[in-house]
């Protein structure tokens, strides 16, 4: 018998033929008795194969596997948290790249801000918030879950899985809520949580320390989506030297063109002579034609202001 018909017999037995193929095959079987015999033999093979089916797994056996898995997952999480002093990763990321002096100062301010400023905002009456602040200060705050409540007064809810589960709810006007969101944005390894944090922060106007956190996120977050969101949020801030320097660094070094473009928006809105050298580099080196054109346009504006000559400081 041709292999093609035997293959059809196998597919028939395994119930994988469509209705037309099935009826054609059944018609063929009525004509060809040997085909019927093959079908019977394959059916018998499958019946025997069913005898080798593994026994159903017991609940106790599965529970043991789940327990083992839980331990492994907790071990992975604790390994992550061991290396997580709040300020260190951000500072390290900044230190890893060539940086101007202001960045070192910024790192010091940031570590001070993360280590101390959070404590100063503690509502002393609330034990959970004090515990959370203590953990944050000790660099032990990990496993934070964020949930949005239906409670209009306290729409954001955090559950902190530490030695004792701690929970805290509040809105974006609450200093601790904002501080935990800053903390998550700068420190959490989980991209989903960082995105959630930046999205929540987007809903409110942040003060100066919020700007510092967003600058840090724009400069150092490993995910371009988070860097982009941070850069876009920074567009609504009043511009200062720190923000200009951060944007210059971004347009020169960020690998993502959307992030560079967003930083360029900030620079374009607030042109200063200090950014001219960077723009000249961009005009020549930038791979993205649109960003090159933007740099060219800003430089042309400077030339217009200086009667065709760029500033002598350059």
């Amino acid at each position: 018998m041709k292999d093609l018909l035997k293959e059809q017999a196998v597919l028939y037995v395994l119930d994988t033929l469509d209705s037309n193929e099935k009826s054609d095959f059944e018609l063929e079987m009525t004509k060809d008795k040997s085909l019927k015999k093959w079908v019977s033999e394959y059916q018998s093979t499958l019946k025997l194969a069913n005898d080798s089916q593994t026994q159903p797994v017991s609940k106790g056996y599965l529970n043991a596997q789940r327990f083992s898995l839980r331990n492994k997952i907790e071990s992975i999480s604790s390994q992550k948290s061991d290396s997580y002093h709040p300020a260190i990763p951000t500072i390290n990321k900044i230190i890893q790249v060539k940086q101007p002096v202001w960045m070192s100062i910024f790192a010091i301010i940031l570590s001070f801000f993360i280590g101390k400023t959070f404590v100063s905002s503690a509502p002393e009456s609330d034990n959970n918030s004090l515990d959370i602040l203590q953990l944050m200060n000790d660099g032990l705050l990990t496993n934070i879950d964020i949930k949005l409540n239906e409670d209009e007064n306290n729409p954001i809810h955090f559950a902190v899985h530490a030695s004792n589960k701690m929970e805290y709810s509040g809105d974006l006007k609450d200093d601790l809520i904002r501080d935990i969101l800053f903390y998550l944005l700068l420190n959490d390894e989980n991209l989903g949580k960082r995105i959630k944090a930046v999205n929540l922060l987007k809903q409110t106007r942040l003060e100066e320390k919020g700007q510092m956190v967003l600058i840090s996120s724009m400069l150092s977050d490993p995910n371009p989506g988070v860097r982009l969101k941070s850069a876009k949020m920074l567009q609504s801030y009043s511009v200062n030297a720190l923000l200009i320097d951060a944007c210059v660094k971004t347009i020169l070094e960020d690998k993502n063109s959307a992030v560079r473009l967003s930083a360029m928006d900030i620079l374009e809105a607030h042109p200063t002579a200090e950014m001219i050298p960077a723009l000249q580099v961009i005009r020549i080196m930038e791979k993205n034609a649109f960003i090159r054109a933007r740099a060219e346009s800003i430089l042309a504006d400077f030339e217009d202001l200086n009667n065709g000559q760029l500033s002598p400081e350059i």
Partner: protein
Amino acid sequence: MKPKVQDLILDAKTGNAEAFHALVAYHDEKIMTLALQLTRHRQDAEDLYQEVFLKAYKNIESFRMESSFYTWLYRIMVNAFLNHQRKEEKITIQESSRELPNPVESISAQPQPDTEVSERINQILMALPKQQKTVFILKHFQGLKIREISDMMNISSGTIKKYLFRAMEKMRFGLKEYQYGRNRL
């Protein structure tokens, strides 16, 4: 996808480990069964189970919810299993002085008790090429559709059908003595 599972997945994607453990409890019976069917070895199946869920935990952010969570877990398992098999094949080639036993040669002509039939079937399944074995188990024991297996293993439906046919032919040949003992076909 059931809403409960969908909510758990969304929670797990934000890093909620408890939601992930709930997902494990929801899906792991089938996963362990498949691991046992593929490996035919308790310890290997347990290792595969752990590997699949650890990979799922580490990569749940990349799960786009376009397929069912089962399909995603099955895909992880099939890839992990085939990778292990490839590594074992390399080791076997390097240690080629040790010949693999031919399960077909050791069949007795006498009627065998069912446990022996099961052992024989295990031998035949273990001797099948890894792709044929995986396809056969996914189709016959797990009841997946050809299209699902094709998506999961990234091979064409036509190839899946060929694998099924070859696997069945080897099974039929390997179990011939037992069939004749029972049915005299």
